[in-house]
């Protein structure tokens, strides 16, 4: 694993970026406290309204006089938490469905795959709009749960493809000949080899959930209580930050979200290169 990371700059760069972002999110209470110098920089009217970026306020302030930099750091933490909750749920569901479908094969696979495809085909965004319109004041966990309903099929599909290719490998056949039970084969033989892909599946459904929430908030239907990156973009549009030239209010969250997307993509392509050496020099530069 260590050699894999040092061998591919893409994998390394992606992992480091994600680690840094997670670290910032974990330390966010501390960072926000430092910015406030003892006071709460996200409190309403903490500072003057619509300040331009300056050494005192790196990204200026918003319409309520809140420090934008502190807000963005806090929102990053919230976004990542929601993504983690949705990601864990959908990965667990996806892994279970994928292993049952891919390992059992036959009619079980047919039914499960068709059902997965059906959920994939239904445009999830209208359903999300509908759900959220009636779930206004809910917490982070509930938001994650709702988002997970729509992100497990992606995980299930990609993992199933991997299970299918692994199932017929010689060492699995060998395990089967030695009369290992199905569950043993899955846990001891298949799962360890799948971990990188499960990791990528987790990260992409987490990101998918984060982005779905951003989308909801941008059209003004996000949950009321939480301030995540999407909520900041929404306030930027809603309060006329565009016309006032207060660019950090929407550029900062967009930058962070883009960084997350880019990091995941790098990891994805890096992993492909490491595990499929023939692709080296193909996927990227």
């Amino acid at each position: 694993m260590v050699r894999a990371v040092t061998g591919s700059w893409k994998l390394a760069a992606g992992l480091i970026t994600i680690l840094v972002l997670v670290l910032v999110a974990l330390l966010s209470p501390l960072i926000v406290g430092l910015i406030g110098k003892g006071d709460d920089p996200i409190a309403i009217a903490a500072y003057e309204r619509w300040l331009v970026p300056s050494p005192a306020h790196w990204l200026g302030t918003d319409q309520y006089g809140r420090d934008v930099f502190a807000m963005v750091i806090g929102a990053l933490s919230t976004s990542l938490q929601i993504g983690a909750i949705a990601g864990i749920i959908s990965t667990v569901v996806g892994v279970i469905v994928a292993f049952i479908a891919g390992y059992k094969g036959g009619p079980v696979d047919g039914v499960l795959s068709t059902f997965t495809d059906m959920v994939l085909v239904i445009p999830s965004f209208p359903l999300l709009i509908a759900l959220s319109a009636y779930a206004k004041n809910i917490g982070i966990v509930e938001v994650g749960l709702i988002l997970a309903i729509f992100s497990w099929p992606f995980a299930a599909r990609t993992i199933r493809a991997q299970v299918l290719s692994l199932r017929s490998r010689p060492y699995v056949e060998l395990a089967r000949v030695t009369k290992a039970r199905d569950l043993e084969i899955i846990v001891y033989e298949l799962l360890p080899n799948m971990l990188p892909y499960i990791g990528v599946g987790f990260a992409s459904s987490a990101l998918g959930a984060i982005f779905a929430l951003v989308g909801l908030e941008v059209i003004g239907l996000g949950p009321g209580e939480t301030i995540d990156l999407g909520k900041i973009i929404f306030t930027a549009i809603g309060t006329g930050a565009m016309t006032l030239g207060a660019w950090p209010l929407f550029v900062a969250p967009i930058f962070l979200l883009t960084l997350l997307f880019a990091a995941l993509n790098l990891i994805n392509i890096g992993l492909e290169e490491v595990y499929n050496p023939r692709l080296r020099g193909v996927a990227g530069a």
Partner: protein
Amino acid sequence: MTAVADKQQEPAARVGGVRVWLGRHPLAGYALRRFGLYLVELWGALTVAFFFFRLIPGDPIQTLIQTLAQNYVYNAAASAEVIAHYKKEFGLDGNIFHQYLVYLQKVVIEQDFGPSLVNYPTPAQEVIFRALPWTIGLLGLSAILAWVFGLLAGALAGWRRGRPGADLMTNLSIALSHVPFYFLALILTFVFAYQLGWLPARGAYDARMDPSWNLEFVGSVLKFGLLPAVSIVVIGIFGWLLSTRMLMVPVLGEDYLTYAQAKGLRPRKVLTKYALRNCYLPQVTAFGISLGFIFNGNVLVEQLFNYPGIGQTLVLAIRILDFNTVMGVTALAIFGVLTANLILDLVLPSLDPRVKYWR
């Protein structure tokens, strides 16, 4: 589809005869099975969507009566009779399974989505078809442009791999291909509409004009569509570039390309006629599926630019629980994606001899 027609031409279509005939015509058997699966998927997805939307709490009839009262059309407090009338009108009477059966019957047999709540008594179809041209025009055109440019750029990036320019484009694509184009749209709007004031920020055409087919109006539509289209096309190009390059580079090492080069063919001909030709089919498939998704509309882009497309209609309809319109848009989206998939699965084996689905 043709398989069904062929089957009817067979005069002695006993059960055994059909089986024997299908055994002799594997493609027809495959097409028939594929079409059956399509129908099942269509029904399943519609059913899931139907029950999901109906389970949302809220009373659309009460909303309608409130709206009517606000517009002074309807003055008295709603009587039970009026409510019952509207419930029947919108297919909301009886329990949910009764509603489901009524809905299925109406949609499948009468091809009627029912009246729209937002623009009662206009049928939901009409509301949807009014919005459809805007969405198809914007998204369809952008999708085609993104695909064409992305394919060419990807082929070039693969061909010239190792050179700084090509590698820069590739790495840029890795970073940006999955970024929602909504982000780019926001930044472009900020720069070109609000800071520079060159282009309009919202709407689909100049509100002082009436929609008609003259040069002035079409020009206005193009001008208003430029910002949303550019953001979709640019992000789209990054995505197609990356996937085309991934298909392209392994092909470049093949013997027949070395041979083509050794024959002294011009590089451009080798690239387009030999290399690109052998890797564009998967991209045709992907493009077909992405076209199917157009019927989803793009809620975010349409919302940001206040564009009168399907996405806008959907958001408005969901807000006031206009079930008929919501289901209409959803059905169209499901239909689009599944049909694109079906057509591709049926057409691909005849386009590419290497693709074989039947045994």
